[in-house]
C-alpha cells in the first residue's frame, strides 16, 4: 500500500474536521494547524503535497504565513487559499498563491483542485 500524500490544512477547527473526513475518504492524509504559526511548526517536520490556507486567522494570518513560508527552504508545496471573503482572488494574488477556493465550496471543486495540485509533476 503506497504512503498517502499529505495535505496541510490551516484553518479553524470546524473546517479542519471537515477536511480530515472529506480528504481521507479519497485517500489523502490530512495534517492540520489552527493558524499560520502552528502551520510553520508543522512544516519543520513535514513535507505536505498541498497546503490549504485560510486567510483570516488569529495570531498569524495568511499573509504573514505566506511571507514566512517564502523564507523556508524549497521545494514548496502549492498553496491554495480558502476564504469566505469576497476578495479571495485578490488575496490569493497578493500572496502569490497557486489557486483559491471560495467558501462555501462544492465538494467536486475541492476534489478537482486537490487532485490537480497533488498529482502535478
Amino acid at each position: 500500500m503506497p504512503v498517502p500524500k499529505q495535505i496541510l490544512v490551516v484553518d479553524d477547527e470546524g473546517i479542519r474536521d471537515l477536511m480530515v473526513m472529506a480528504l481521507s475518504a479519497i485517500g489523502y492524509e490530512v495534517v492540520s494547524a489552527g493558524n499560520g504559526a502552528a502551520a510553520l511548526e508543522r512544516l519543520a517536520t513535514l513535507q505536505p503535497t498541498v497546503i490549504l490556507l485560510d486567510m483570516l486567522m488569529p495570531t498569524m494570518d495568511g499573509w504573514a504565513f505566506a511571507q514566512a513560508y517564502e523564507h523556508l527552504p524549497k521545494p514548496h508545496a502549492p498553496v491554495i487559499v480558502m476564504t469566505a471573503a469576497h476578495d479571495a482572488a485578490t488575496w490569493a494574488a497578493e500572496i502569490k498563491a497557486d489557486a483559491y477556493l471560495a467558501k462555501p465550496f462544492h465538494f467536486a471543486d475541492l476534489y478537482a483542485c486537490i487532485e490537480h495540485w497533488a498529482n502535478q509533476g
Partner: protein
Amino acid sequence: MTASAVRYLLQVGALAAVYAAAAKGGLLLATVGAQVTLVWPPAGLALAALLLGGPRLWPGVAFGATLVNASTGVPLATACGMGTGNTLEALTAVAMLRRFGFQPSLDRLRDVFALVALAAGLSPIASATIGVASLLLGGVLPLRNVATAWGTWWLGDALGDLVVAPLLLVLSKQPWRHLMARRAAEAAVLLVAMVVASVAVFGGWVGPRGSYLSLVYLIFPFALWATLQFGPPGAVLFTGLVSGFAIWGVVHVTGPFVHGTILRYNLLNTQVFMGVAAVTVLILAAAVAERERAAAGLRALQSITDTALAHLALTDLLPQVLNRVTTALAVDNTAILLISADEEAFVPYMARGPDEQVAGQVRIPLAPGLAGRIVVSRQPLVVDDLSTVEPGEAVTPFWRATTHALMGVPLVVDDRVIGVLQAGTRAPRHFTADEVRLLQLVADRIALAIDHARLYEAERQAHDEAVAAVQARDEFLSVAAHELKTPLTSLRGFAQLLLHAMKGESRIDAPSVRRALQHLDQQSIKLEGLVTQLLDLSRIEVGKLALDKQATDVTELVNAVAAAAQVETRLHTLVVHAPGPIVADIDPLRVEQVLVNLVNNAIKYSPDGGPIDLTVRPWADGVQVTVRDHGLGIAPEHQAHIFDRFYQAHAHSHRSGIGLGLHISRQIVDLHGGSITAAFPTDGGSYFVVTLPRGHTNGPTGDT
C-alpha cells in the same frame, strides 16, 4: 516746590525768552512806528508752543510779549495791553483748533484748512485789535495810521501762523527723521539746491535789483520737489527756508520783491507771496498724504481681500487675514470672535498677539462684553483706554490684561451679525475714524469669506461623515458576509460529505457521522446567533427593540450564564461573587444576551485562559454586574469606540465576530435605563460594568 512745578516754570521761562528773541527780530523790521511789523514769527511760536505744551504755558507768551513791547518805549499799560492781545491770540487759536480736532502733523486737508482759517485768519484779529487799541490809547499811534497798523499786525501774525507754526508742529510730530534718513541723500541734495536757488533769487545774483519779478517762479520746482517727495515735512521746510531768504533779500534791498526803497511795500510783496506759497504747499502736501493713506488703505484692503478669496478653509483663512490686518493697521493684537452656533457665546476663533494660545479653547459670554455691545448695536466701538472699562464689560479677560487701546467692528453677512473683528495696541493710541473705517471695510470683506468658509466646512464635514458612514456600512457588510459564510461552509461541507457517503461514493464510519452531525448542529446555532444579531441591529435602527420586563433574580441569571460558559471552556475559570438574590425588573432574555456577550468576549479575548470574575451587587437604586478578565484588553486608540456600531477593536487580528455585540448590549442596557462602561486596568484585561435600575419589583410577575 515740586519737580513738576520747577519744570513748568522752566518751560514758561524758556518760552518767554524764545518769544522775546523772535519778537525782537521781527521788530527790527517794524514798519508802523517801532511796534508794528509785517514779520512776526512769535505768533507762530506761541501757537505751536501752546498746542504742543498745552494752554497752561500761556504766561510764557504773556511775559515775553509784554517785555518786548515794553522795550520799544511804550508806556507799561500799553505794553501790557499788547501782551494781552498776543496771549489771547494764541489761546483762542489753540481753543478753536482743539475744538476742531486739529492734528499737528498737518497730513490731513481739514487740519490745513483749520490752520489757515482759524489760526491764521481769525486769531490775529484779537491780537491786532487789542494791540492797535492799546497803542492808540497809549498815545503811541496816530489815529490816521490805525488801519495800516491793524492790517500790518494781522498779516504779520498770520504769516507767523502759516510759516513758523507749521514748521515747529510738523517737525515735532512727524516721523520726519525716518523719512529723511530713508532718503538722506535726496534730502541733502534738495536742501542744498533750495538754499542755492533761494540765495540766487532773493540775493540778487541773477539780474539787476527788482527787475525780474518772474525770477520768483524759479523756486516753484523746489516747492513741488520738497512737497511731493517729503510730504508735510518737506513743505514746511520749504516755506521756512524760502521765507527766511526772501525777508533776508528784502532787508538787504535785493531780489525780485524790491521795488524802490520803501521797506513796507517790499515786505508786503514778500509776505503776500509767502502766504500764498505756504498755503499752497501745505494743501498740496496734505492732499498727497491723504492720497497716499487712501492708497495704502486700498492696498491693505486689496491684500486682505486677496487673502480672503484665496483660502476656503477657516484654519487657513483666519490667520492669514489677521496677519494682514495686524500689518495694515500697525496694531499688536487682532482677534476674530465668531458667534457660536447656539448664538449664546463668542468663540475667539483666532487671535494674533500674546493671546494666540487662548484662541479656540474659550467661550466668551455674549451678553455683557464690549464685543456683545458691538453685536447688538452693529456699530464700531473704540476704546482709548481699556483699563477704564468696567471689568465685566471688558471684551475678554485676556485682552484686558495686554491691550490699552482697542477698536472693534461687527462682521455682518446678509444683515446677520456673525461675529466681531478687533484690533488693539499695547501702547496708548487713539484709533481715528479713518482707521475704524478701514477695519470696517476689512470686516465687510472677510465676513463673507468667513461665512463661505464655515458653510464649506460644514458641508465638507457632512460629506466626510456620509462617506465614513458608507464606508463603515460597506466594511460591515463584507465582515458580515464573511462571518455568515464561515458556518455555511461547514454546513455545506458536512452535508455534502454525508450525501457522498449515503450515495456510496465514499465510506464513512459511525463516529464520523456523529461528529459531522454535531458540527452541523453547532454551526446552525452559530448562524442563528448571527442572524439574531443582525435582526436586533435592524430593530434598534428603527427603534423597535422592545423589552419584556419581569421581576428577575439577577444573581441567578449571572450564575446560569457563567455555568453555561464554563461548560464550553477548560482554559478559563469563571467565578461568580454575589451576596445573594437581587431581584430587578428587567427583560431576562435581553439581559442574558448582554451577559453572554460580555462573558463570551472575556473568553474570546483571553486566549491563554485564566480567571474570569463576575460580581453582582446592589448599587444605589439598582443592581450592578461586573465582568473582569485578564486577557488582551483593548488598545487605547480603540477604547472610545468599542460600543460603536460595527466597531471591532480586534478587526486586524481576525478574531471572529461582526462587531455588533457590544453595540447591541449597550442599546439593551440603555433601554433599561441603565449604563454599561468599560475600563482597562493597567495590569491587563478588561473590566465591564453593567448597572441596571431595579424598577418596580413588587410582584413576582412584575409588569411588562
